């Protein structure tokens, strides 16, 4: 009898304790700054660690809490972040792709603060490319601090294959198509392509290469008509380019596809410049095992993507968050992060001696080219719009029907973009 009472009591106590501990809010202690990211492995995590060291040297009194969430290339982290924000429990700062991926989600949700004053105080406007600023702003307000820059419009090629077949590195769409025709006739696989998101990556570079900078930018602010003849022409180019790709693309990751070029199984591959870090891991040498050029038609244009940090509305420790952002935007912070991550600084004044051959050339272009944003990597379109484009693209990959694809793109812009 006594025993059963005791058991009930213990059971109820444990239940209550479980419920209470689950509900207890994480107390916001002063002197702590919590930074949320999906950098949990490889060069990204190592780069973050290097930047945290710079932060701790500059701010010995602030404890850095690294709230990184692994998995799904950020999908898991973003779902966790969304539930924390919906519960009113934001971290002080978090990582996100610079541009509309942040703006369309978190500015629209009133979750992040403008950073114009910080940019002025730190003098960042004069060390970052002028054409970059509008792409990370909304209504004149800058919302994030870019730490690194990757380039999306890079065409990787196998120098030996091109030379053996007498093909010069193409600089225009027509030259590229002609080059791939020559290679195909010679029995060489002209283009290596991977799973669906790499097809979107290729699409954005072909759109840029065919439309040119102004019309490409116009797609994202509503001034270029998605239903117009120039977009039709770009999509027809895309069909032609894809027709030179391997037939098993759907089963290849981006690494599988990029590897075909350095192994001599394919001549061209379009992929962001993180591929260069992968080529180095494989023990390949720049210029002999792989060459690079802007995607044909986009010479002089730098299509960028960037990881950046924001300041949360209702950050538990706004001063600590600002101190973190200062490090993220500083020369010391970016020089610590980028050589390890294999990307270039968002600032144009980093020391080129810290970087390898490819990154040196990217730095030179970053300082001199016109900067436009990437679709696949979150700069130019918000998440909803991008996912609608992805659906239209997926249907197109199966059908190759340009008219339906274009209608889908028009509908996507109307439902989730600036088009009316």
């Amino acid at each position, binding site marked *: 009898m006594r025993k059963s009472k005791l058991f009930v009591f213990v059971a109820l106590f444990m239940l209550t304790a479980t419920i209470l501990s689950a509900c207890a809010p994480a107390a916001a202690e002063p002197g702590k700054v919590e930074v949320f990211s999906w950098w949990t492995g490889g060069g990204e995590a190592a780069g973050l660690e290097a930047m945290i060291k710079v932060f701790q040297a500059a701010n010995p009194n602030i404890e850095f809490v690294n709230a990184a969430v692994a998995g799904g290339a950020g999908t898991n982290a973003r779902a966790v972040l969304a539930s924390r924000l919906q519960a009113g429990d934001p971290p002080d700062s978090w990582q996100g792709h610079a541009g509309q991926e942040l703006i369309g989600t978190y500015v629209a*949700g009133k979750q992040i603060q403008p950073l114009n004053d910080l940019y002025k105080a730190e003098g960042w406007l004069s060390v970052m490319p002028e054409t970059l600023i509008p792409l990370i702003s909304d209504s004149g307000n800058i919302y994030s601090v870019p730490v690194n820059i990757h380039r999306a419009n890079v065409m990787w090629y196998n120098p030996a294959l091109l030379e053996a077949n007498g093909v010069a590195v193409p600089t225009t769409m027509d030259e590229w198509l002609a080059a791939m025709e020559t290679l195909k006739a010679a029995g060489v696989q002209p283009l290596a392509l991977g799973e669906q*998101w790499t097809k979107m990556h290729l699409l954005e570079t072909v759109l840029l290469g065919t439309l040119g900078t102004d019309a490409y930018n116009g797609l994202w602010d509503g001034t270029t008509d998605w239903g117009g003849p120039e977009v039709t022409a770009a999509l027809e180019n895309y069909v032609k380019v894809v027709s030179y790709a391997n037939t*098993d693309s*759907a089963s290849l990751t981006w690494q599988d596809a990029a590897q075909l070029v350095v192994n001599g199984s394919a001549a061209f591959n379009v992929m962001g410049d993180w591929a260069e870090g992968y080529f180095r891991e494989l023990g390949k040498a720049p210029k002999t095992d792989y060459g690079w050029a802007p995607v044909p038609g986009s010479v002089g244009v730098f299509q960028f993507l960037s990881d950046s940090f924001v300041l949360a509305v209702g950050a538990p420790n706004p001063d600590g968050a600002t101190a973190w952002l200062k490090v993220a935007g500083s020369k010391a912070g970016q020089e610590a992060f980028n050589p390890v991550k294999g990307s270039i600084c968002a600032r144009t004044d980093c020391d080129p001696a810290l970087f390898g051959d490819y990154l040196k050339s990217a730095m030179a272009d970053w300082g001199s080219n016109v900067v436009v944003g990437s679709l696949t990597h979150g700069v130019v379109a918000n*998440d909803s719009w991008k996912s609608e484009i992805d659906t239209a693209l997926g*249907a197109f990959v*199966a059908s190759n029907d340009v008219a339906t694809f274009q209608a889908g793109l028009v509908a996507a812009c109307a439902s989730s973009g600036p088009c009316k």
Partner: protein
Amino acid sequence: MLTKSRDKDKYLSIILITPSVLAVLIFVYGFIAWSVRVSVSKWKGLNPDYTFVGLQNYIDLFADPRFQLDIRNTLLFTAVFVIGTIVLGFFAAVLLDQGLKGENFFRSLYLFPMAISYIVTGVVWRWLMNPATGDRTSGLNLLFQFLHLDFLKNAWHTTPDWGIAAIAIPAIWQMSGYTMALYLAGLRAIPGELTEAAQIDGASSFQIYRYIILPLLSPVTLSALIILGHMSLKVFDLIISVAGKQYMLDVPAIYMWQTTFDGLFYGRGAAISILLLLSVAVLIIPYIRYTLKTETDQ
């Protein structure tokens, strides 16, 4: 004295069952109710927006070519998976029932795949069903090439229109051992007198299976149908691990995940999940009622 202790038992049992009842009420039925509410709202973006839009999300879904493809893919996958698993499982059970040596060993061998998660199965079969051609041929296609069975080489899950049927192959591999176990138990439960009597009457083995064993196994077949059917409606992880996120192999669960968490279309995502719940409920509820009824009858 006896009634008093009965009362105590009653109270105690109520107290003990309360936490799990509460948990189920909140975390299952409460969340279903919440999902229904989201599915009739126009919530899109990070912040909740519960503005009522009626059945608009559902109407849009049925007009959405991607969701139409999802329904087609699910039906095709279910058909191939359920039929394949039941047929294979039944034949494996019949073979094992012949009283061969090492039955225990084979029974475990066929059951083992079930212990593996779909993710692991998917990773293995991703390699086995590699559609690469030429020098890069590998997996089953390479095996076929060695055996000079080139006509068997195919593009597996990248086959236009029918790729989803290839995804059912690993699922069949994984679950046919389980249906085998179900059928084996069913076969063992059939009284030997029945088949003996039929043999004395001069029935052939085919006739015995067709007119005696199969009808007696129909409750097992029903259970297998329900269990496999609701699994295939929810298929998600297997497709993701074999082929990643690809439009051609899209099913409602993948669409729900992508549109909600990548695209922030919460209203649409909730509508898909409610439709998924309903489709599973159509299978499960009559089955539960049937089992409860037979149990109370007994």
